[in-house]
């Protein structure tokens, strides 16, 4: 019988760099907050088409986004951290997506899933928004038509990296204000 190899180096959440000794661990508050935020991202699914179906698979047991701390979907934008836009956004829906983004509390991140949300995809036509980055800032783009659940998870992990490494002062910085102003927000 084949011997079962027991993995002992499994890391759930890697601890940040810091000073370690018997009975104490010292690190930056920023890193601890980043770690906490990254591993409990509440997604707001904005699913309009087939990418939304892939997202259902991503949330279900086979791929299980809950492994990365994102099992709690928030259908209220006010309690969500990460806006996941999955699917074609028609121009008529643009203002609604923008309103949802504006209602989210800071800090907030945006994941653009699939070709349509990222660039309009095959729908180069009068009625479709040619990428959601024309109305809201996007942090991570996931390519694919539609992307596989692995790709969506990879996109979420990329967002987690951004969350971990973000400065606590970023959202108050003039650069961030300028970014929002370039989209006409605030």
């Amino acid at each position, binding site marked *: 019988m084949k011997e079962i190899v027991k993995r002992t180096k499994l890391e759930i959440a890697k601890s940040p760099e810091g000073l370690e000794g018997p009975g104490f661990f010292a690190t930056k508050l920023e890193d601890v907050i980043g770690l906490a935020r990254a591993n409990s991202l509440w997604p707001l699914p904005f699913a309009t088409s087939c990418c939304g179906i892939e997202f259902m698979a991503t949330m279900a047991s086979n791929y299980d986004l809950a492994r990365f701390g994102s099992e709690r979907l928030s259908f209220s934008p006010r309690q969500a951290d990460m806006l996941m836009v999955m699917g074609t956004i028609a*121009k*008529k829906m643009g203002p609604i997506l923008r309103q949802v983004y504006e209602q989210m509390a800071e800090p907030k991140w945006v994941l653009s899933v699939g070709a349509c949300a990222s660039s*309009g995809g095959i729908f*180069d*036509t*009068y*009625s*479709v928004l*040619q990428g959601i980055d*024309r109305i809201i800032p996007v942090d991570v783009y996931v390519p694919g038509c539609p992307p596989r659940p692995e790709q969506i998870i990879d996109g979420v992990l990329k967002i987690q990296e951004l969350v971990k490494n973000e400065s606590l002062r970023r959202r108050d910085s003039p650069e961030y204000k300028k970014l929002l102003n370039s989209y006409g927000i605030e």
Partner: protein
Amino acid sequence: MSAQLLETVTTKINTRLPDAIEVAEMSYDFPVFTIKHDKIHAVLKFLKEDADLNFHFLTDLTGIQSPDEKQLGVIYHLHNFPKNLRIRLKTFFDINKPEIPTATDIYPAANWMERETYDFFGVRFKGHPNLVRILNVDEMDIFPLRKEYPLEDQTRDDKSDKMFGR
């Protein structure tokens, strides 16, 4: 069966409203009538109210632009449920004066279909109670399914004409 229907309807319309029919023909197995645009309202009313014909159901109403691009058209699909008879009516008019009377007073179901036809082709239905856009954004200033307007989004600059045939 359908050829017979074509004959019956043609005779009936010609008796009641002479000169209304421009063309009456079979398109495959489907009777199609091209009606003069100033007579379309009277013809629809007659087809619905005539006890024998009884085309009481408007299946569909949509717009069409003729290949020479100078004419706009409206197509009506009518259905008689009790006898299960279907016919199609077409009417064409000048694209520079796209006005025909509304069918909402005959078929209330025409309300949204006429709004859609206005939205995409710019056909103005005189007498329609609420002729505003139904599907496209309210700010749109074109009629997107007319051939003079390009289908592609005009705000993109990452596609070269050479590659995408613009």
